[in-house]
């Protein structure tokens, strides 16, 4: 096999200019696919972190069964009592893969600075737990002012655009109004602890954060709407959902659990769009690689017709001729992928050293364009291109093998 491999390698570099163009075509295609994959791989991680940390969704959200459909009509019926909340948190935190389980409650109402009023949506959270959920995100997007604090019961955080509309800054006072669970209007004084960036244009003009106790006071309840669960490993999300559902059922609690993917407003849609773009690019590159290889091998066969005749006269079987050209095709794929790998690493290093920035739709500030280097995908694509080039070469190779020996020897 080695002797044929050696012959195939030498044949590839026989027509240097043509081989260079083919290798470059394969290499550029390889680099383009990998760079785009590296970009979307990084984007998926960013979107995932944004959903879990920035949106504060955690990995899993436990609601009472039926909350999704009927919770708005009769909230109290579909919330967890104080006892149930404590029981669920105990059950969930017993699991090894769980970092924490924390109660939350959502409030919608009107916020005013005494002059101007507007609507708000607020999450009532346990500040210490929320800080854990946000993790590195709270450093990336720090609060201007002070963080929420359980000791400061009337302290709230306001999203940056909402704060701007109402001219609220850290230390200023206001009033929030919301209907209690029994339908009475309730109002509480508040003090702005800090102003924060939600990361999204869609939520920056209406979001607020209250402490869990403050939100319960405003809604006049001791119940919790949901328990948010943070896991050690996001890849265990589905597995943990099944485990927790079984545990809740066994404990006699009718609950429904949704994952961060199901809850996130944009993750699945954005992922689906990027996947489609990747598939589109991948298809174009593959077509180019196959056509380039077929063309190169076709030209090589035409030029080497007499040589094929000689090899056949010397006793090489048709299968041997096919194999020789298929091997040349596979080697084109290999060397092309190698060129692509070098190109990819160079561009990756440049982007890493000088990352360009852009503002994605719906995002409130520029983000750096970052490309991941994913070795598994590099090697997988290399294998894929080697096999594709091999199969692309088989078509002209079979034609070459079928040639009549006398005609091939007489070819000029």
């Amino acid at each position, binding site marked *: 096999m080695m002797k044929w491999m050696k012959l195939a390698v*030498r044949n590839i570099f026989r027509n240097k200019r043509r081989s260079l163009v083919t290798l470059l075509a394969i290499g550029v295609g390889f680099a383009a696919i990998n760079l785009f994959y590296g970009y979307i791989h990084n984007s998926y991680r960013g979107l995932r972190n944004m959903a879990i940390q920035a949106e504060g969704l955690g990995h899993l959200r436990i609601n009472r069964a039926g909350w999704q459909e009927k919770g708005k009509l009769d909230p109290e019926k579909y919330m967890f009592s104080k006892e149930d909340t404590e029981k669920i948190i105990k059950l969930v935190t017993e699991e090894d893969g769980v970092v924490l389980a924390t109660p939350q409650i959502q409030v919608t109402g009107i916020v005013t600075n005494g002059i101007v009023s507007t609507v708000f949506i607020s999450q009532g959270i346990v500040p210490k737990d929320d800080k854990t959920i946000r993790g590195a995100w709270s450093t990336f997007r720090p609060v201007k002012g002070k963080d929420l604090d359980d000791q400061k019961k009337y302290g709230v955080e306001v999203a940056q655009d909402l704060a701007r509309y109402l001219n609220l800054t850290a230390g200023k006072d206001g009033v929030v109004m919301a209907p209690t669970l029994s339908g009475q209007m309730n109002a509480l004084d508040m003090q702005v602890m800090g102003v924060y960036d939600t990361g999204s244009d869609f939520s920056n003009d209406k979001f607020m954060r209250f402490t869990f106790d403050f939100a319960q006071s405003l809604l006049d309840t001791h119940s919790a709407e949901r328990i948010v669960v943070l896991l050690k490993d996001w890849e265990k999300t589905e597995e943990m959902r099944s485990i927790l559902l079984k545990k809740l059922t066994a404990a006699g609690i009718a609950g429904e659990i949704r994952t961060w993917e199901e809850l996130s407003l944009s993750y699945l849609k954005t992922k689906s769009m990027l996947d489609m773009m990747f598939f589109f690019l991948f298809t174009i590159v593959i077509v180019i690689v196959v056509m380039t290889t077929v063309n190169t091998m076709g030209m090589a066969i035409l030029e080497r017709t007499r*040589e094929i005749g000689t*090899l*056949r006269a*010397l006793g*090489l079987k*048709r299968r041997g001729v096919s194999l020789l050209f298929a091997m040349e095709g596979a080697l084109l794929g290999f060397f092309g992928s190698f060129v692509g790998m070098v190109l990819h690493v160079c561009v990756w290093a440049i982007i890493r050293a000088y990352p360009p920035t852009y503002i994605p739709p719906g995002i409130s500030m520029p983000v750096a364009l970052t490309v991941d280097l994913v070795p598994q995908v590099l090697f997988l694509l290399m294998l894929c291109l080697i096999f594709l080039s091999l199969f692309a070469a088989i078509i002209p190779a079979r034609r070459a093998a079928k040639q009549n*020996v*006398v005609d091939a020897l007489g070819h000029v």
Partner: protein
Amino acid sequence: MALIEMKNITKDYHLGETVVRALRGIDLQIDKGEFVAIWGPSGSGKTTLLNLIGAIDEPTTGELAIAGKDVRSLSDNQRSKHRNEMIGFIFQGFNLVPVLSALENVMLPLQIKGASFSEAKSKALSRLEEVGLSELIHNRPAKMSGGQQQRVSIARALVNDPSLVIADEPTANLDSETARMIISIMRELNEKDEITFIFSTHDQRLLDQVKRLVRLEDGKIVNGGAKQ
């Protein structure tokens, strides 16, 4: 038993709707160890006859046996194996693989056969030595003269120890002196190893060196078909 036995062989070529009869009822017997020249004017059917003997083409009608084997009954793979083991080819244009060195070119038939690298190398070196090219084994064809290339081609034809060597106008691209040298090498090998050589030529200067002359005209043997 004759090495080559041809009975009433015809060969037609179809050029569009026109049928060209290249060979018209050839009867020919060649024994092991003969040194035969097929000669005649251009278009007389010399190359066609050699192609049939070399099992790279099939007769339209007639019987053809090489070493008692009916070549027409062989499959393509069997015919490839038969060529590799039984027949050596020397071409007018040398037909060496340009990306391989002289040594690698000579090793090729053995490697096609499946011989190990060391066996192929030692046999190829020995054949290259016989044709006087020990010094040029690492040269590629482009760096060799026509005569040197043809000697590599002879070494390649002999490396598998074939019963039969077919040479189609082996001296056509060579000057007179080199042509004589090539024929004399072939003659020596024929006498030393009893290898049957059949070559085509229309160069009358070379004909005095052969043992048997077969003259073809218009696809028919006009002289030398029967053993002398």
